[in-house]
């Protein structure tokens, strides 16, 4: 295998190292191009990491739905009729819409329709009180800082327990005061605190001034029949949310005799839309930086080719001598191409090393900064491998230009006395 021939590499390394300055200049273009490419990729990755962090803890294909008032008269009903979902609707959706993975109904106390008071030792917190199933934790993750979240036993036995948000805790308890095991009063009923959660840093629907109590407890204690205020759902990842959302609405509109064009009767929020627009944005950004980077790289490699082309002209005599001494065109070509590859690969690796160092340094610096939307900026291994592969392939192709020029030189012309 000639690629492993030590003499060949010695010859090439000798040629390159004995023309240090030339080699150095040739390398610069690719070196900087590689740095630009990798820094661009690293920065965009860092940005999309930041976005991911924002969405962390919220299922990307989640859908929230609640009932409102109709805005169109339909089938003899006047407009302005209040629609109320019930637990039957939850069962209906479970049965009729197989694309739904999780569905978790909620009763909300407080807000604009039901007055609620959360009270302890003379203080009130103004929290909203949410009757939920433990499943809600899988739709919007609660960061439990102390204790635990609601579980199925709490639902089964309709326990009077609650999980409170950090703000609610601060309103109701003194700083550092033990809350777990202590009671708070919701509309006069005592609930034992079993957990405290911290809201997600970025996207959070419920906020952290809220009190979560078991759905069943809420229904039994505060009444409301089988009404459901709000349904949180996740759709299986193989489906996209909007068509399923339409399907669900159609089903419910049909059931409640709502005009098909009534946009106001059922409210919904599709988290995936935000996800999609953000990931489309980062995707475009990523593609763009790859595109820019690759062209910079191409420019760098063309610069190598250019310089090699010039040096081939400069080395006409040397190449002529080599050929007079028995170097076949193939050998001459191989040497030039390998020189091109070696220069680009070496410069590429240098660029890789430096840009990794720069990104690592930048990450350390940005770590503490809240307002820099870059988290863990680094290019991925596939990105690096693709860039590197392209680098090598392009350097071979472009090395062939000076190589072909070199073998076109006839030894007789090269050696002709000036």
């Amino acid at each position, binding site marked *: 295998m000639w690629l492993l021939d030590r003499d060949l590499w010695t010859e090439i390394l000798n040629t390159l190292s004995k023309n240090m300055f030339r080699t150095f200049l040739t390398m610069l273009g690719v070196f900087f191009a590689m740095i630009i490419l990798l820094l661009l990729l690293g920065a965009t990755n860092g940005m999309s990491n930041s976005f991911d962090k924002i969405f962390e803890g919220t299922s990307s294909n989640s859908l929230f739905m609640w009932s409102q008032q109709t805005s169109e008269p339909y089938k003899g009903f006047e407009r302005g009729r209040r629609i109320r979902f019930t637990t039957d609707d939850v069962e209906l959706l479970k049965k009729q819409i197989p694309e739904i993975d999780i569905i978790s109904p909620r009763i909300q106390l407080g807000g604009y329709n039901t007055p609620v008071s959360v009270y302890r030792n003379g203080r009130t917190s103004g929290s909203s009180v949410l009757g939920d199933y433990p499943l809600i934790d899988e739709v919007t993750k609660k960061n439990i800082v102390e204790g635990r979240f609601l579980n199925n036993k709490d639902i089964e036995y309709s326990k009077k327990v609650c999980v409170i948000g950090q703000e609610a805790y601060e309103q109701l308890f003194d700083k550092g005061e033990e809350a777990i095991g202590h009671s708070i009063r919701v509309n006069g009923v005592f609930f034992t605190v079993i957990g405290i959660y911290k809201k997600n840093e970025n996207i959070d629907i419920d906020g952290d001034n809220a009190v979560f109590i078991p759905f069943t407890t809420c229904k039994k204690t505060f009444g409301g029949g089988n009404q459901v205020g709000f349904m949180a759902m996740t759709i299986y990842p193989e489906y996209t949310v909007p068509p399923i959302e339409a399907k669900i609405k159609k089903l419910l509109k049909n059931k409640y005799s709502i005009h098909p064009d009534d946009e106001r009767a059922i409210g919904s929020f599709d988290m995936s839309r935000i996800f999609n627009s953000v990931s489309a944005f980062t995707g475009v950004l990523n593609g763009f930086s790859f595109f820019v980077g690759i062209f910079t790289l191409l420019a760098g490699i063309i610069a190598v080719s250019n310089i090699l082309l010039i040096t081939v002209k400069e080395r006409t005599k040397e190449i002529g001598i*080599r050929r007079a001494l*028995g170097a*076949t065109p193939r050998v001459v070509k191989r040497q030039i191409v390998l020189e091109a590859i070696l220069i680009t690969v070496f410069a590429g690796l240098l660029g890789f090393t430096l840009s990794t160092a720069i990104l690592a340094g930048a990450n350390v610096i940005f770590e503490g900064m809240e307002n820099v939307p870059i988290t863990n900026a680094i290019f991925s291994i596939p990105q690096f491998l693709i860039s590197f592969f392209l680098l090598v392939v392009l350097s071979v192709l472009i090395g062939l230009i000076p190589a072909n020029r070199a073998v076109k030189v006839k030894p007789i012309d090269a050696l002709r006395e000036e």
Partner: protein
Amino acid sequence: MIEIKDLHKSYKMGSNSLHVLKGLNFNIKEGELVAIMGSSGSGKSTLLNILGMLDELDEGSYTLDGVPIKNLNETKAAQYRNKFLGFIFQSFNLINYKTAVENVALPLYYQGVNRKERQEKALKYLEQVGLKEWAGHLPSELSGGQKQRVAIARALAAEPKVLMADEPTGALDSQTSYEVMDLIQKINDDGNTILVVTHEPDIADMCKRIVHLKDGVIVEDKKVDQVRASQYV
């Protein structure tokens, strides 16, 4: 060793063609030391280029050591040059960033000789031209005569059938020229076939046979009594 029959060569210069070699016939036997003489434009360099497989003949035949040299592609020509011929040039043509010993070893590299053997052979031939202690020096650190001796060592290293020297003393002063000719004579004494192209009569006289070219034809081909260069050294 070399057989030339009815050799013609012309160059196209725009619309006219320049007939440079007009039917040459001559043979060189093994162990000969032949001077090809002629003034500039006589076709002696063209002849040497054809003999050196750096250029192709138009008509006639050229046989080197029994092998017909005709229609060679570049690869074949390079291999034949490497195997059959050693070149010595007027301007030495050493590779300037390689040391003396690396220059000498270069044809061996193209022959595929391994590193150790290359080094040994190169040193042996450098010793033969009296430059063993200069092995690690770059051409820029050597005098003209020394450079030409390195070039001679390089030509010898490949152990060719024929050595071809194109004005080997053209860039040297007369004292150094005689030293180089002395070396060439000694190499010839060892049985090597050598062709020297020159326009200097005193250099030609140091060969054993002079072929005189004029306007593309051989006007004279005579054996001479060799003047030993050692008497001037």
